[in-house]
């Protein structure tokens, strides 16, 4: 199980699209927490996914119009009790790049 964080602009439906990308794969969401973070929002999800699922879900998240960043980290020990876990106390997370392959030139 790992912790995924998705940073997004809280426009209509964006949060629901982030959740839909997970639920359409029949994955359990054992922990979900969304909060304002600066001028954006941040949702934290604890998910058990295999490598292929994680890749696909991350890609689906990146494809959502108002999603800016997706990152992953190992689940902190304190999240054994999910209610007590706080996103601000998570270990440093690794960003998941939007694109595979060579460096993009926008």
């Amino acid at each position, binding site marked *: 199980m790992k912790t995924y964080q998705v940073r997004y602009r809280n426009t209509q*439906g964006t949060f*629901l699209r982030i959740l839909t990308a997970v639920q359409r794969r029949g994955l359990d969401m054992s922990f979900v927490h969304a909060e304002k973070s600066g001028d954006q929002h941040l949702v934290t999800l604890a998910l058990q996914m295999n490598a292929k699922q994680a890749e696909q879900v991350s890609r689906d998240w990146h494809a959502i*119009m108002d999603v800016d960043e997706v990152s992953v980290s190992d689940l902190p020990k304190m999240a054994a009790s999910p209610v007590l876990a706080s996103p601000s106390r998570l270990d440093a997370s690794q960003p998941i790049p939007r694109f595979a*392959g060579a460096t993009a030139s926008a």
Partner: protein
Amino acid sequence: MRKGADIVLSCLRAEGVELVFGYPGGAIMPLYDVLEGSGVRHILSRHEQGAVFAAEGYSRATGKVGVAFATSGPGATNLITGIADAKMDSVPLVCITGQVRSTLIGSDAFQEIDVFGMTLSLTKWSRLVRSVEEIPAAIAEGFHWARSGRPGPVVIDIPGDIFRTQAEFSGPATFVPKRAEASYAKDTALFARLVDLFRNAKKPVALIGGGAKLSGAIEPLRSLLDRLQVPTCATVHGLGAVDPNKGFYLGMVGMHGTRQANLATHDTDLLLVLGARLDDRVTGEPSRFAPNAKIVHFEIDPAQLDRVRGGELAVLGNLADTIPALHRAVIDAQLPTWPEWLALVKGAERSTADATGSAEPTVRFLDELYSHLPKNSIVVTDVGQHQMWAAQRYCSGNPRGFITSGGLGSMGFGLPAAVGAQLACPEATVLCISGDGGFQMNIQELATVRRLNLPVKMVIINNKYLGMVRQWQQLFYNRNYAETDLSDNPDFVDIAEAYRIPSQRVGVEAVAGESISQETKHLFDGFLQSSEPELLVFDCHPEANVFPMVPTGASLSEMLTEDK
């Protein structure tokens, strides 16, 4: 001061919309009330699914955004299949749905449905408009997302009171996205790597998908392929992107692809994928797809990269930019040619297996019909065996000349999509090929055809079965033809007569013999050249099967080529 409904139509006109397809109802009545004189022509379908498929046909034929209107509740839910269809096949579509008035939302009001929630996983973007002032921005943003990047559907849900509310309107809005679409078109190192891959390849193959058409990159694509001279195949949505008369063209690849295309794609050591998402109908068993190949994937949607199988190289961006970049890199490079490889893939032992036995009359019928089609005709199909035969035999180089429901495979698509295509291209011959099952799913659109006097040429390949399902039941379910018998179909000629549409029926004898008779040729000419809508029912063999066929779990090289 303008009513919200007026503002909607003004904003649609500003987006270049001339034609919308729809069906009125309670919640959307205020919008219909202001249609007259708005400059937007409304085409009344006879079912909202007919409207959204017609909007798709219009969009697929032109590249413009298709627009469909529907009322709340059942009107909106009847759009769902078309929205899903547009998502799967990357069709730019904007659906405007009426919603119950704002104060009733969430109360399970009459004809209230959460269309926003229902379509979340089907749309690129959607919006429940909460004030009349939001309308211009919602429409501008909706159209942007519908047509940009990988095109797709959007839904804009507008409560009835918002349509009726008046507000100052200073003009349509413009939308500027907050994040730019990435492109690798200027990454010269990437293209240098790709040229090296070509230099080292022994058996390269190019696979062309619908993205080649969506990007408008047909001419650069054809120039590139002429330079590369590699064996080239197309997905069902890529048909027409490549000139079929080119010596390196192998035909359609995939579950019902040609032997040449499937064997070449299986054997290749370098697969250049241009604008295809490598759907499982194309790959066969994904884990056994092109087992020896390095895959170079040109794609606009990052979500499609490495989705089915890991690639060697990803070239992200619009093909209109990335194909010319590749061409420039290739021009200066001293690439080998692959004449022995091309001779092998096009050789007699790999050549397309012509249909034999019970499928042969249907294939001859389609071949003959196609030979009578004028240039720049549009073929629209429904879904099933007829669709695969129509795709296999398609031999035109008109990039927007073959319209079909690919990714979702929606039966009932053909007739309404043909309505949209005919309205989009009034001078073109639009040939709609359906099966007897699918034709009945939106048969009510014959009324639309008749009302508008659309000269659509409709063919029903009538085998009195749900043919493709029956084929699978024959091959994989021990001939247990459960619920696929349509032998009690009505007489389609009688139905056409009721809709005042000329019709006729022919059987396999019309295409029997060494060569097609003059009588049949005159019949086809008369049928296609009529200024009226026409229906032609072809009574074919009930248990003909489509081959080649790649069964589930098999690789492209493991095609079935004859009945078991």
